[in-house]
């Protein structure tokens, strides 16, 4: 018996390898160093990694532009424009989160390199997901992404809420992973392959007479993804986990999980199961309606800003699903645009929440924000902009994100669905605005403590606001980029 070693195209794997490598190097460094590392060292490593990943992505982009999309490692990993944009989104989210984690670690005395190491490992998982062309690789990415986050969710040992979050996330996440891999197994049984291209080829060239196995497999995969992106009715964990996890971790969770899971979902549904469009579209239709409406309506009742943001991100996930529902290249580009612009905005939002939450990370009642925009116009104003962007107000990038998926939906004939989604945004507007109202209200607490803004976190917030405003005025470049990326999309 002979073993064939698949050919490996290292450029395609470089971002994943760099990120994993950085995680390992950082871990070894901190273990072997005679003295505890200076707090700036892990930050420097993470930022250097992110810069390296973005540079590698630039090389990948030019390679894809010249040679077209390609696969490697026995077609298990794909290098196409879609993956490159996803890679950049993950790198940006990781860099911004690292800035926030740096300051939080110093304040909360969570020293050492563990948090950055785990963040790097999780991000590597997300990077693997955006490039996966095989259900097994999707699963590997998903697990790597999640394992790091399970630990990070419980990192604040002084708060029981954090341990609770970790346990919940771990148990339910474990369930979801099991369901996902079961789905992968059923799809393998039905089509004879776990490779996405092979599945698409098989379904394109064969008539599945008894599709029960395939449908069951696809449904289980969808449940697994639904859990990861917190689509209703698989969202129950997210408010508790968002609330309990250390806030900077929540920011990371909200951004990279969305990027990784949505890009993989687009690949699985649109390219592998594209021929079954008519079967999965009705299911997704229901998911979009439920996710949008439940996220918006239940969000109205929240008094804790982290729970509120959890429901907000459920509502946003509904919009991202909308792009997937279309099953078209335009919809995929819309979802890509959405996650790409949502990631920095949500990290920056959680950065502000981290600062206001204080050293113990407990001041998360919405009342704690009363008058913030009056006391500290820059910090409060930044939060207002970030919230308006998530609300979808024009001149913020959130408007164009919603617009991108809506126009794709209407082009695919989903007028009613688009209307429902947009009306849910109007409901969601109420809770964003209630928060804004608290921010600009007159200051009743005399001498309420000023929230100190450390430099690194301030930079992260600034980047988020800049993304929201600059691309809100001038969305052309990102829109064109997302569209080109989907042209290089490999079915």
């Amino acid at each position, binding site marked *: 018996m002979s073993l064939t070693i698949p050919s490996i195209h290292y450029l395609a794997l470089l971002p994943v390898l760099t990120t994993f490598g950085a995680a390992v190097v950082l871990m070894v460094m901190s273990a072997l160093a005679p003295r505890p590392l200076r707090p700036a060292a892990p930050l420097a490593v993470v930022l250097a990694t992110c810069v390296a990943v973005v540079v590698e992505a630039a090389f990948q982009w030019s390679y894809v532009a010249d040679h077209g999309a390609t696969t490697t490692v026995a077609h298990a990993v794909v290098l196409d424009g879609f993956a490159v944009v996803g890679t950049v989104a993950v790198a940006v989210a990781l860099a911004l989160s690292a800035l926030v984690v740096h300051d939080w670690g110093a304040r909360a005395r969570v020293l050492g390199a563990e948090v950055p190491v785990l963040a790097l490992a999780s991000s590597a998982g997300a990077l693997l997901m955006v490039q996966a062309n095989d259900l097994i690789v999707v699963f590997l990415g998903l697990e790597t992404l999640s394992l790091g986050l399970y630990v990070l969710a419980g990192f604040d040992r002084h708060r029981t809420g954090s341990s609770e979050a970790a346990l919940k996330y771990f148990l339910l996440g474990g369930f979801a992973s099991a369901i996902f891999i079961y789905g992968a197994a059923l799809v393998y049984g039905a089509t004879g392959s776990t490779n996405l291209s092979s599945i698409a080829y098989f379904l394109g060239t064969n008539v599945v007479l008894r599709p029960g196995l395939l449908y069951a497999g696809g449904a289980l995969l969808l449940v697994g993804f639904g859990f990861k992106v917190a689509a209703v009715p698989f969202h129950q964990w997210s408010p508790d986990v968002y609330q309990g996890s250390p806030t900077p971790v929540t920011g990371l969770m909200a951004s990279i999980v969305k990027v990784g899971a949505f890009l993989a979902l687009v690949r699985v549904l649109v390219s592998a199961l594209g021929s079954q469009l008519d079967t999965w579209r009705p299911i997704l239709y229901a998911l979009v309606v439920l996710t949008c409406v439940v996220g918006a309506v239940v969000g109205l009742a929240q008094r804790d800003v982290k729970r509120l943001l959890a429901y907000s991100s459920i509502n946003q996930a509904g919009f991202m699903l909308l792009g997937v529902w279309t099953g078209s290249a335009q919809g995929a*580009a819309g979802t890509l645009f959405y996650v790409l612009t949502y990631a920095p905005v949500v990290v920056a939002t959680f950065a502000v929440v981290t600062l206001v939450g204080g050293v113990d990370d407990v001041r998360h009642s919405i009342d704690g924000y009363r008058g913030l925009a009056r006391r500290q116009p820059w910090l409060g104003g930044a939060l207002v902009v970030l919230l*308006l962007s998530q609300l979808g*107000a*024009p*001149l913020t990038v959130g*408007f*164009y994100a919603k*617009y*991108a998926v*809506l*126009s794709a939906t*209407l*082009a695919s004939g989903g*007028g009613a669905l*688009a*209307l429902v989604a*947009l*009306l849910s*945004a*109007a*409901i969601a*507007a*109420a809770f964003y*605005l*209630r928060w*804004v*109202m608290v921010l*600009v*209200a007159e200051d009743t607490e005399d001498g309420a403590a000023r929230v100190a803004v450390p430099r690194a976190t301030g930079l992260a917030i600034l980047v988020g606001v800049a993304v929201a405003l600059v691309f809100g005025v*001038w*969305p*052309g470049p990102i*829109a*064109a980029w*997302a*569209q080109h990326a989907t042209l290089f999309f490999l079915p």
Partner: protein
Amino acid sequence: MHSSWYLAALLVVPLLGALGALAAARTRDGAYRVAVATSVVELGLTLVVAFLYDPHVAGAHTLDFATRHVLAAPFGLAYDVGLDGISLLLVVLTSLVLCLALLGARDRRREPAFVAWLLVLTTCTMGSFLAQDGLEFFVFFELTLVPSYFIVAEWGGAERARAALKFFVYTFTGSAALLVGLIYLAVAHQNQVGGPLTFAFSALAATTLSHGTAVWLFAAFAVAFAVKSPIWPLHTWSPLAYAEAPTGGSIELSALLAKLGSYGLLRVAVGLVPLALVDVRPVVLTLAVVGVLYGSLVACTTPDLKRLVAYSSLAQMGFITLGVMSGSAIATEGALLLMFNHGVITAGFFLLIGFIERRRASYQIHDLAGLQGPAPVLAALFTVVMMASIGLPGLSGFVSEYLILIGTFATHAWWAAFATLGVLASAAYLLWAFQRVFHGRAHGPNEHLEDARVAERWVMVPVVVLVVALGVFPQPVLNRIAPSVDRLVAHEIAAVHP
């Protein structure tokens, strides 16, 4: 054709003024002075543009100062501005209302932010009136919400939080339908003619639609504009918002932002999907007439002056909707004229109520009595504005309502007949309110009410001049707007009776 830079300047000047006002925040009165200077420059510029405007531009269309630049091709986003007779008066109104709000309703609480929001709001409104592209229009239209939300939420009365939220959510919900409708239309247009996605009004108006689709689209557009106008029964946010807003905010909301609704109804709904008019016209006309009658009836019973004006606005907006939907060129011209006149008159009302509120800290009718004795000038000014609103011949309100009624009578006689009752009702509630507030014997603090100060009198001068001038000699204005209106109505008739 004139250079489009004039219109770019109209959009940019208020933004620069807002930045300047914030920069001058540290000096005493600095922000206010910068804002007033900006508003005067803007008004001057607007008047220049209005006089330069040429309604007979070479070629078939009546757009002057036009230009188009695509900003984001995949989204079909473009900067596309132009001025025609339909926008002309509203552009002037935008600058005028800004001046009046700044000069007559000064709010000293955190003034730099307040005047900056007013200036930003002006850019957004101006942009909506100048946009010749659906998506651009939507962006500006939606953007007006942000400054007006903050103006109500931060400077409003006791119930400002509820008022601002209600206002935002109502309007945002309406806009959701508008956005979906616009994208649907643009996609349909792209599918028919190919090429890149575009939202240009001129392109979208040429889309061939089935009858049912046209009705759905019209409904989607009309919901957004009916909330904004407001048109009965989607008006319920407006009395609260008008009453709770600070005087400057009430003026902007009722005199200006309400006009965005009726303008949108004409430009977007009637202009882009005229085919739907066959079916929807009776419905919208009926709602308009109900709005006229309902607004007038409620205005009779309301206990405070601001709400009285809010409900009277509802009635007036009903007249405007009647004219816009009548399918008659004369009535449409009357409606455009009434948009302007109602803007001026309502601004006058809210300014005067603001003056009273400044002195008495109340605008409840039962707190006030016999003000004519101590404040004869104030009473005189109120009389002029009130008479214009009632529609006394010789004042501006009469001309526009008359045009609307005779135009509508020619095309839809019954609706015009019922709407005429609203003219009578307006006389009843306004005169009754005037009687309760200004006549009789003044007691307590009313007895020594200070009369209008010099500055306050000067602010009211443009209002009175416009009310009289447009009442006596409106023909030059009508000549400038008529070609565009004729074109629009011809397009409408061609679609309805092919």
